[in-house]
């Protein structure tokens, strides 16, 4: 029985992502670095032997997940838990919260231009966002942030996995270079990249 096997057993038995330090609690001889080394060994092993699953870094931890090419076979089974997809408004609201957290409802609604109370509550019920702080000002508004479940739902390792705003085709500029109002002239979009 070696260290890699112990780590594998712990990962196998878990139904949620585990942090390296959590796995290390399995035995006194383990620490974070040893666990991570063991995980890399497992990843190589699984890759070499073409297993149908991998050790995936997910939501600030590690979890064994099947490889995506096996999805068509697994989707036929009712016993496989499958989270339902989010609606358009839910995704927009989540995007705002993810990038601007901690953020209050009023600010979210200003960005989207529509009321978001119901959507936020749904996201909260699904555990994708939660109240992380209270803001200053009148009524000390609730401020929302994303959760670990959010990372898991989208397959992110951490919040840094979100696409950086610099990479996006639409860029927010500090000073907006506004030109004259041109009633009938259709100009091409200037290159912001």
């Amino acid at each position: 029985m070696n260290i890699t096997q112990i780590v594998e057993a712990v990962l196998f038995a878990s139904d949620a992502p585990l942090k390296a330090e959590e796995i290390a609690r399995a035995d006194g001889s383990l620490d974070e670095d040893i666990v991570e080394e063991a995980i890399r060994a497992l990843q190589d092993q699984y890759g070499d032997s073409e297993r149908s699953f991998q050790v995936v870094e997910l939501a600030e931890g590690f979890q064994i997940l099947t490889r995506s090419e096996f999805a068509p076979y697994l989707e036929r089974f009712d016993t496989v838990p499958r989270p339902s997809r989010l609606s358009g408004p839910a995704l927009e609201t989540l995007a705002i919260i993810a990038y601007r957290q901690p953020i209050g409802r009023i600010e979210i609604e200003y960005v989207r231009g529509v009321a978001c109370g119901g959507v936020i509550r749904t996201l909260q019920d699904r555990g994708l966002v939660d109240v992380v702080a209270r803001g200053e000002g009148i009524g000390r508004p609730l401020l929302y942030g994303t959760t670990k479940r959010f990372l898991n739902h989208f397959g992110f390792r951490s919040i840094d996995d979100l696409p950086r705003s610099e990479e996006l085709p639409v860029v927010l500029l500090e000073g907006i270079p506004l030109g004259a109002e041109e009633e009938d002239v259709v100009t091409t979009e200037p290159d912001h990249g």
Partner: protein
Amino acid sequence: MDLSRAGNTLITRENFLVVELDRFQGPLDLLLHLIRQQDVDIFHIPLARITDQFLAAIQTIRSDQLEGAGEFLEMAATLIRIKAQMLLPRQEGEEDQDPRAELVRRLLEYEQIREISSRLKTAEAERARRFAKGWVPARPRPEISDTPLETTWEDVWEVALMVELSDPAGRGPLVPTRSVTMEDKIFLIVDALAEKARVEFSRLLCGFEDKAHAVMTLLAGLELSRRRELFLRQVTPFSELWLYRRREGDETSLTEGGDPALEEPEIPHGTRRRPAWMPPEEEEPEDPLAVLDVNLDALDEDTVGPETT
């Protein structure tokens, strides 16, 4: 609403854009759509045109959908305000920005959020193709408490033996039958009593096997009795139930003893006696005024108080 006029001028003046409002997630979404569809530079928004198009688009909001319309109307007001500010002369030294600045900033921010949410959607779909170890939470089981049986197995057995199973082979296909109406049964009784002074309840059931007919016949008999159209008579419990015809003005009940049927005058065969409260069977008044007269008469009778006419 003043919005309607703005919308109408647009249809004649500009290339009118048909916009389904339901498709949009809010006013920013709609505004962005208008700008992008026409390939307008977001930094040079032709505010007058876009405002007109926006107002035209929200014309389709019906009055029963006003719940979500407030946000669109608020944006319409913002657009009109910016348009007005653009028309006002601005002083050179003023620090004030272009009135469109905040709107453009919001539009860009919203466009960015939309881009992010489409990437999140892709990430979500990709993640959904990978499965963790199957783990389905156990379904909560309803609590079943041990209630002592108040019935003994002997009782159950006894009842079970009494149940007669009908022959499954003899059971025909189930066909929904016409429902039994009280009106039919009232006619049945009235017809029967037109020929004879009295009739047995069991005779009224002849030819009807369904229990519903017996129930409805009894109810019809009770109803007619309540309306003083007939008597019901049963000498002893579970003996035959008799229905007796009752003449107009006959208030005294039949005396015990002798056969009351003999005392009744014979009514010529075929004569129908219709209860007074029943509407005429076929003769409908053709003249609508006739109906009116009847109604007015009824009204006069019912009206309590000094006469006004």
